[in-house]
């Protein structure tokens, strides 16, 4: 038993390094990006957060935005994908495994963003001393999903039917945990008084909608890139249709809520709040965030419309729409959710924020790290469920057509 497990881990490890040209190019690019990020991070730790575009006025930027989005996406992936396990005889189990893999990698990326954001990463363990419950809960959430993913993949490796008791209770717990974490993440900033921008009734649901769009967008791109060759034919079609519907629904919900918030802000109030006015139209002639937010909204609207039209039947159009939706979500989360709350400052000073190259590289590195973990998990999932990685067979790694998400 123990030897089998170790052998499985060893083979999975080897498998994550070997593959076709496309896969290797993808992994090489991710590794290079991750190392660039490590290098930028080392520079930041040596010179301080002065290497970022942050200031005393705008204390949070794309790191915290990335953290929030990563937590949101992890929860959304768990919430949307894990319930697929609950249906007996579903042919979408692979999709659920993909969702679990995404959740795990997003938690890792979230941890990366937190560490990148702290001024004293050497003291990050103080969180463990002061908030043992929170850290433990996050660890348990991660372990639950890893367990569900791992037990199913390992059973498939052994060509054994998994007992439902082995994973179902844990999947249920993970879904509950994801629900709690999603709620906590969406209300994270609401409690910080004195920042009028976050006293926004639609802020939390908009965040949830955005996160629920990000997760299916990544899953859809993975499917389109051939990340799950096992799910062929009808099963693949069904998986694609489901994920596409989820993405479209989340995008439309997001846009609708955004329209509601804009109406409320600019027509429902005597005067819009300064931070919101700054975000969309600028303040005192300064409008660094306006181009970002409008491009984000335009990309999301474009994706939402295309996803509901017939042209999306063509895989290339579908991938483009999906990429546009994901880019829209990323842009809005990066510039439209956190930073505007700091402009103007509580004392009325307008200081703008733009991330520096070093800051962007750190983010790139964290994202690349998360994608590396995701690609490896997807590769193992795909190989096992296609029967290419089993106990009885040596892994076939050389010439099959496969790739990670791209």
């Amino acid at each position, binding site marked *: 038993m123990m030897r089998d497990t170790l052998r499985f881990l060893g083979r999975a490890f080897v498998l994550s*390094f070997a593959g076709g040209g496309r896969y290797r190019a993808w992994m090489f690019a991710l*590794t290079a990006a991750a*190392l*660039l990020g*490590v*290098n930028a991070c*080392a*520079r930041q*730790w*040596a*010179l*301080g*957060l*002065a290497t*970022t575009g*942050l*200031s*005393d*006025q705008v*204390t*949070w930027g794309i790191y915290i935005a990335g953290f929030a989005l990563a937590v949101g996406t992890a929860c959304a992936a768990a919430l949307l994908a894990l319930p697929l396990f609950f249906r007996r005889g579903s042919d979408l189990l692979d999709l659920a495994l993909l969702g679990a893999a995404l959740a795990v990698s997003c938690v890792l990326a979230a941890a990366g963003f*937190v560490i990148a*954001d*702290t*001024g*004293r990463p*050497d*003291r*990050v363990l*103080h*969180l463990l*001393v*002061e*908030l043992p419950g929170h850290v433990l809960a996050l660890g348990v959430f991660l372990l639950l999903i890893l367990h569900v993913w791992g037990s199913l993949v390992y059973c498939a490796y052994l060509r054994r039917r998994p007992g439902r008791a082995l994973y179902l209770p844990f999947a249920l717990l993970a879904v509950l945990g994801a629900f709690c974490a999603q709620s906590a993440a969406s209300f994270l*900033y609401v409690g*910080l*008084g*004195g*920042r*009028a921008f976050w006293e926004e009734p639609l802020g939390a649901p908009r965040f949830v909608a955005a996160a629920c769009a990000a997760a299916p967008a990544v899953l859809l791109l993975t499917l389109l890139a051939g990340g799950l060759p096992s799910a062929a034919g009808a099963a693949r079609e069904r998986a694609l249709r489901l994920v596409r519907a989820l993405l479209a629904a989340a995008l439309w919900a997001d846009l609708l809520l955004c329209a509601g918030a804009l109406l409320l802000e600019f027509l429902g109030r005597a005067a819009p*709040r*300064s931070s919101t006015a700054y975000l969309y139209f600028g303040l005192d002639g300064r409008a660094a965030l306006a181009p970002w937010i409008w491009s984000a909204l335009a990309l999301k609207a474009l994706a939402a419309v295309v996803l509901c039209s017939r042209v999306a039947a063509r895989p290339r159009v579908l991938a483009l729409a999906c990429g546009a939706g994901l880019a829209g979500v990323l842009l809005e989360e990066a510039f439209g959710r956190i930073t505007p*709350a*700091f402009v*103007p*400052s*509580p*004392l*009325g*000073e307008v200081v703008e924020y733009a991330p520096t190259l070093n800051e962007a590289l750190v983010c790139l590195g964290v994202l690349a790290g998360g994608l590396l973990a995701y690609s490896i998990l997807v590769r193992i999932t795909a190989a096992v469920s296609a029967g290419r990685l089993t106990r009885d067979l040596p892994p076939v790694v050389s010439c099959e057509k496969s790739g990670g998400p791209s």
Partner: protein
Amino acid sequence: MSASSRRAFLKGALGGAGGLAAAAASLTPLARTGAAADLTLEKLLQPHYLRLTQEELARVLARIEAEVRERHGVRAEVSDHKALPGVEFAFALDVDQCVGCRRCVHACAVENNSSRAPEIQYIRVLELPEGSLDLEEGDHHYAPESLPRAGRTYLPIQCQQCANPPCVGACPVGATWQEPDGVTVIDYDWCIGCRLCMAACPYWARRFNFAPPAVPSSALHPRMDYLTNRPRSAGVVEKCHFCLHRTRAGLQPACVEACPNGARKFGNVLDPDGELAWILARKSVFVLKPELGTLPRFYYYAGAERARAAAAPPRLDGE
């Protein structure tokens, strides 16, 4: 071993070695600046200030003194003044007396060994149209030929030492707390630099050390306290602490001493014969952003008679 598997092994080994070398190379900035060398096990394991035993505290204070001596060649005395019983500090500022000269700002930086480059200032003085207290109308960077300008009000803002401080609740590691005498302090050695407290503060009172703070050795103020003006490191938050190293020893804060017009009044609000009690009883004082429920211990008032005569009460910030 066949030729092809040997080739695969060599390729793998080469790839692995290359990857490791790239990973090591990416970390060079840390080695070059010696940032990592400053970390000692003792510092990494140092407990929270409130959990330090007497002996541990003495060791920590001695370590800080040694560091100051090594880095600046200055013989500093690092002490730890505790809150006195029956004392609750409060501040009152006569807006009519303030001429906006910013002497308090600079005296504060000198007293508190704040970084000069980049400059960290605990006090921000706003120039407002006379009679207005709408902070968004304020000019932060006013620089006229002579001060005060006619038709302008000057409003210095620093940590308001709230009785209900949002920053303390926001800190995820308890590195900032309210002392028994009402002053919110920071353990610079426990702060992880997440800046949640800065996001939570409605008065923009907190400052972050984005870069290693630079104070010229010749300007270093050698009388230091653990919780106040000892040298800080990069990556931690700091703010006004009512000069506890002075005020707990019976002195006035540096900003009060620096004010040429006597606009600043500081004292123990629990002392019935004190100046603060007198002002609170007789002047119509106001606080900033009262609607937030933070209960500041920093009161403003218009001391001149003409302000009393003016019909309109002070307009409070609308946000």
